[in-house]
């Protein structure tokens, strides 16, 4: 094997290497369909309680004169993962950002309709309180330029300590940081040196740090905006497993361009096109028996 070649992701067993599993048979493609045919590989333990946390009701969102989300109604439930899929410009990300009112920091954004969190309109909350309960992870890993520990501790502290001074490490904070890092599956990798600068981590580790940071604030809803699009397949797999594991304790909404990923992680899928919600249903139903023609076209790769 040429040693200058990048390492393959799935390695075909070489001779005299009996411990490498032989490749599985290529999945059968049904007709011309590009639809995800790979069965879910990760264990998905059933979640006992599923109940609605957020509700999007007839929401319209605009930047300036331009309506990018039109009349969307959606439930967001604890105990499951909701995936928003759709082509670029379909308004998925805008809808996601409106769930914790991050659209408000964009000048010229306007909104109609109601978004409820546990029955209360989210605009009745103070923005900061809402964002502590509905936290978000972005497409690009964006850890703060401080140590790993401080990154997580920052989101813990209600009242952050003065600038420049190292955060006081009480046993309580240390435990909470460790817990958040464990939930994000990062603790084992970084446990040796939590004082390392976060920017020295790899991209996948940075993204998991961002998830840990979001989880440390004990959110009730976790919003993920294409969390894996900047990552390699191995990191992606780690994060997908993590997402599936998280849905028991938080309601998860994920925006993704990757249909395979939506199929792997989501319990419910919402397909959006040009700002409208075309189809919403369980993952199996949307991918196997889509009702709308446009959904069928999209997941079979006719456009998008």
């Amino acid at each position: 094997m040429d040693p200058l070649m990048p390492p393959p992701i799935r390695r075909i067993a070489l001779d005299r290497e009996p411990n490498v599993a032989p490749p599985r048979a290529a999945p059968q493609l049904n007709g011309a369909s590009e639809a995800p045919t790979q069965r879910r590989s990760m264990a998905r333990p059933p979640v006992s309680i599923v109940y609605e946390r957020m509700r999007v009701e007839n929401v319209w969102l605009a930047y300036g004169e331009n309506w990018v989300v039109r009349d969307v109604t959606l439930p967001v439930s604890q105990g499951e993962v909701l995936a928003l899929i759709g082509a670029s410009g379909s308004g998925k990300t805008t809808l996601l950002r409106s769930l914790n009112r991050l659209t408000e920091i964009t000048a010229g954004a306007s909104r109609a309709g109601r978004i409820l969190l546990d029955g209360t309109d989210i605009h009745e909350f103070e923005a900061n309180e809402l964002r502590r309960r509905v936290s978000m992870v972005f497409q690009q890993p964006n850890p703060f330029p401080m140590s790993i520990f401080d990154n997580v501790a920052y989101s813990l502290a209600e009242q952050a300590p003065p600038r420049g001074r190292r955060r006081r490490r009480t046993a309580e904070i240390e435990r909470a940081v460790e817990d958040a890092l464990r939930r994000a599956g990062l603790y084992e990798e970084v446990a040796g040196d939590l004082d390392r600068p976060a920017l020295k981590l790899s991209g996948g580790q940075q993204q998991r740090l961002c998830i840990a940071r979001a989880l440390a604030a004990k959110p009730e809803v976790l919003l993920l905006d294409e969390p894996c699009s900047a990552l390699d397949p191995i990191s992606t797999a780690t994060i997908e497993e993590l997402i599936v594991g998280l849905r028991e304790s938080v309601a998860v909404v994920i925006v993704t361009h990757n249909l395979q990923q939506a199929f792997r992680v989501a319990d419910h899928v919402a397909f959006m096109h040009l700002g409208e919600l075309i189809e919403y249903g369980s993952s199996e139903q949307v991918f196997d028996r889509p009702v709308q023609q446009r959904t069928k076209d999209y997941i079979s790769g006719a456009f998008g």
Partner: protein
Amino acid sequence: MASVGLSPTPPPGTLAVRPRREHIRSWPLVDRLCYALCWLTGIGLCLIAVGIVAIMFAKGVSYLTLSQFITSPSASIQQSQSGGFSDPIIGTLIVTAIGILIAAPLGIAIAAWLAEYRRPSWLARTVESAIEMLAGVPSVVLAIFGLVVLSQGYLGFLSEGANHGSLGESFFNAGIVMSLIALPLVVGSTRQGLNQLPDRLREASYALGKTRATTIRCVLLPATRPNIASGIVLGMGRIIGDTAIITIVLGATLRNEPVNSVPLLGLLRGTGSTLTSYVYYNSPAGEGNSHEKAYAAAFVLLMIVLILNSIVTRLTNGPRERGTAFRLLRFGTSRS
């Protein structure tokens, strides 16, 4: 997945072929001339820098004695009788400290407001032009202005002179006026640093439920620390090098003259001098007659500035940054 592993070193011979380098003869004539010009100017700049240090070193060291650091200057035509420059050194340190202690927090606050809040926008624009104006005002004008304002009787706690209806010349007042010339540099540098930070840092913090103020305090300002430090060094450089304000607002007396016996306060409320005014006074152009001491003092002044810059550059960039031959000469620079 765990068994994905390749030998980390390429087999011998793989890298034997050197990539062929582009040859300068293939460049157009204009490019070659410009390239030569870049080299010439670069080397020329280094020569000037070396020349300054070398000449001051040659002139200064020969006249410099250890006793000059600990003896006060005295008025005498005889070089042997005119003492040292301990007072100007102390004066320089005090004025710089007061000036930067005022300018740094104010400047950082102004920059944070300009870069992050900017509301109402007409006020932000006004503040911007005010800062620009301040940066453009000659320091001698600021000195006159400061002397007029700070000589008011009710500001007598800053200077003894103002108490008696005479001029308010003191270390306090000189430091205050000095802070005005350092302020635009601190504001400009901090603001530039804040503007360079990507918006995703801010979004990340807002998405965790943090307020704008917390974000600035805990994320943005620490992230822009190199720029803040370079602004502070540039400001200190200007303060140390200024002579007009010293002459007018500090009095440029030969010795530091405490107004009473209160340890520090008496000194700060009284008049004094700094190295710049001392050098001017004793230079061939000044009234004093100790030219040799002027060279020695100028050399000390240069050394103070260079050491200061190197300390802050080191603090800013961390010890890992690779050194340059002339890193001491880089005036408050920082990467990023």
